[in-house]
């Protein structure tokens, strides 16, 4: 066994770290925090210019052919830097899915523009009545000659207000089993009939509801077969970056440790010297390492040519549940002063623990809820009989 990363991965990591140290300025972080939009066009295009949007892509797409280990290092460094990179994640997921399930035209016209940082995508899966049960999708697409006419509504269309395309799951056949009548489209956001309503969340992030009224798209925007949308969904799921939150966990702990080291109690003792504080910080540190290892295991398996389906799910489940537990413990150690929000004078830890406590709650929902993750691990990992209550 060898837990060290190959020199070329460490070298790449150092390069990325140096870049991020320069470009992920406090201003970038503050702007994302203030707007709730976890995407920064400036940073995004600088990263594209470095070739890192396409770092994991083959040379024929202008990529650098980076390995899964290098890509994991890149993701980890981005999150460790605090960069707002939700947009990059979605763009990458859509591009990868197009590479597998897209048409030649899509590969030729859309992928290069995503990888160059020119265009941004958003995901249109969830609906008011289709959350974890995403196949319950009711947004209708009806064929009309070479076009499709789309009507419906999508929830949580994060980044819709910045995106050029929505990766849209629709129902094209209501008369078959629910997984078998779905079709995926990549719809330009400037198509008439699309409306965006902002949705503000407890964590400060902005998301959107998107409405689709008689939206007409050419059939060339269809991704995959007619009624083959579920297969495309499954492809896309593989590219969810499940260990991304490890970097956020580290930022949280670093913030809390720095605070506890400088803050003193009424008797002049450093807070970090209180056994009850030390115990919780240590527990958070252990969880962070477990999260880190579960994430790297999945990346390593991918590098070995294996499909880390269950293992990636474990990394996602563990990391996000641990993140919430740690935020809960660490805001407690701040005491009353931990209540002040970021930007308030004198806020403990500059209010970042408070912000994290609100933000982290959503991480067990998107990219597969903890309940869905547990079901996958139980059935696919442990081979337990399919639960009668989950599907």
């Amino acid at each position, binding site marked *: 066994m060898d837990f060290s990363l190959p020199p070329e991965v460490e070298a790449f990591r150092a390069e990325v770290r140096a870049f991020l140290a320069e470009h992920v300025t406090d201003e970038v972080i503050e702007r994302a925090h203030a707007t709730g939009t976890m995407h920064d066009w400036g940073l995004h295009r600088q990263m594209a210019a470095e070739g890192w949007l396409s770092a994991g892509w083959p040379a024929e797409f202008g990529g650098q052919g980076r390995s899964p280990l290098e890509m994991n290092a890149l993701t980890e460094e981005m999150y460790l830097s605090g960069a707002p990179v939700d947009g990059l994640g979605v763009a990458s997921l859509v591009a990868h899915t197009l590479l597998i399930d897209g048409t030649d035209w899509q590969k030729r016209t859309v992928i290069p523009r995503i990888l160059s940082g020119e265009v941004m995508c958003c995901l249109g899966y969830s609906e008011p009545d289709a959350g974890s049960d995403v196949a319950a999708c009711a947004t209708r697409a009806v064929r009309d000659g070479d076009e499709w006419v789309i009507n419906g509504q999508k929830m949580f269309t994060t980044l819709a207000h910045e995106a050029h395309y929505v990766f849209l799951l629709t129902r094209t056949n209501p008369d078959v089993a629910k997984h078998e009548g779905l079709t995926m489209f990549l719809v330009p956001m400037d198509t008439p009939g699309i409306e965006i309503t902002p949705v503000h969340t407890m964590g400060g992030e902005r998301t959107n509801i998107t409405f689709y009224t008689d939206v007409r798209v050419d059939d060339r925007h269809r991704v995959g077969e007619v009624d083959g949308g579920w297969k495309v969904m499954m492809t896309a799921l593989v590219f969810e970056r499940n260990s991304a939150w490890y970097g956020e966990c580290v930022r949280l702990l670093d913030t809390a440790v720095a605070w506890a080291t400088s803050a003193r109690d009424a008797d002049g003792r450093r807070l970090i010297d209180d056994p009850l504080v030390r115990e919780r910080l240590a527990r958070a540190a252990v969880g962070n390492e477990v999260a880190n290892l579960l994430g790297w295991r999945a990346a390593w398996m991918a590098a070995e040519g294996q499909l880390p389906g269950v293992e990636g799910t474990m990394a996602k489940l563990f990391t996000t549940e641990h993140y919430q537990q740690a935020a809960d413990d660490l805001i407690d150690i701040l005491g*009353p002063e931990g209540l002040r929000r970021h*930007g308030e004078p004198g806020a403990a830890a500059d209010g970042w623990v*408070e912000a994290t406590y609100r933000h982290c*709650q*959503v991480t067990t929902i998107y990219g597969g809820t903890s309940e869905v993750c547990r079901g996958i691990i139980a059935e696919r990992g442990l081979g337990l009989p399919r639960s009668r209550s989950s*599907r």
Partner: protein
Amino acid sequence: MDLALSGEQEALRDTVARFFSKVASAERVRAAEPLGFDAAVWRGLADMGVPTMAADGGATLADVSVVAREAGAHLAPVPIVEAAVTNRLLTRCAHAVDDTTVRTLALRPATGGRAALVPGGAVAAEVVVLGGGDLLLVRPGPTGERRAPANLGSAPLADIDITAGRRSLLTPADGSAVDEHARALDEWRALTASWLVGLGRAALDLGVSYVKDRRQFGVPIGSFQAVQHRLADLATALDGAALLADKAVWTLDTDAPGAATFPAMAFSYCGEAAQRAAAASLHLHGGYGFMEEYDIQLHFRRAKAARLVLADPCRELVGLADRLFGPVETSTGAGR
């Protein structure tokens, strides 16, 4: 033994609940953010005589607890627990009280001339502060001039400068200033515990309603065993919390032997139960739980904030240990 509300208390509960449903609806609670104060709600409670009802011996803490629980359930944007406790403390100092004036107390002694993060401090006309071993009544000047820092619970907290504004020394009739402040703080713990039970049960109700209505995979998600078991544990914890809060209030009203321990136990346990209930309910809402327009995020933020405004919950438990097991022996030299 009688674990039911009296007829009068039931009537009080219903009156207050009706009032809050009308005047402190979720829309109004949301509209009162970020400050967390609604003058109309305060006026209504003042008209009912709630702030001083237990100050003159006319009502008990148990009666105030009935109001506090409804206030927690509706997240009523008023520092009613603080006012009730402070008015009792002032009465014990032979200081006149009234229902109109918003009053509060600093939970922790002032340090460096400042009482930090006083609940209700951003909207109170009078603040009782323990400073240098004395009880001070501070009138910090117009509320507009006070800094009300944005905070997790959208509560009207403020740092009170006890060197500015008018202030006067309070003299408790019996007991020291420190003892009387400790007494008020235990009353605050017990009543806030009750407030947290109200919040926790309202959060649980939101969760239960949601999972009964919300369908996924062709069935209500409330029929999923993992959902059911989680809610059953929370309902049990909240029933226990309600009993513990009720007993804490009763020990204070009757000066029963548990008066030294139950308020701290209730505050600790009810806070944990409420926080767990709000968190679970939020998560059972899926993505909707995080949307500002859904109510459960209001409960979620306030549950944690109401615990934390006093102290790190672990520190509270260690403080409780002092009451249960006696103080730490200091004779032997250095520790770890």
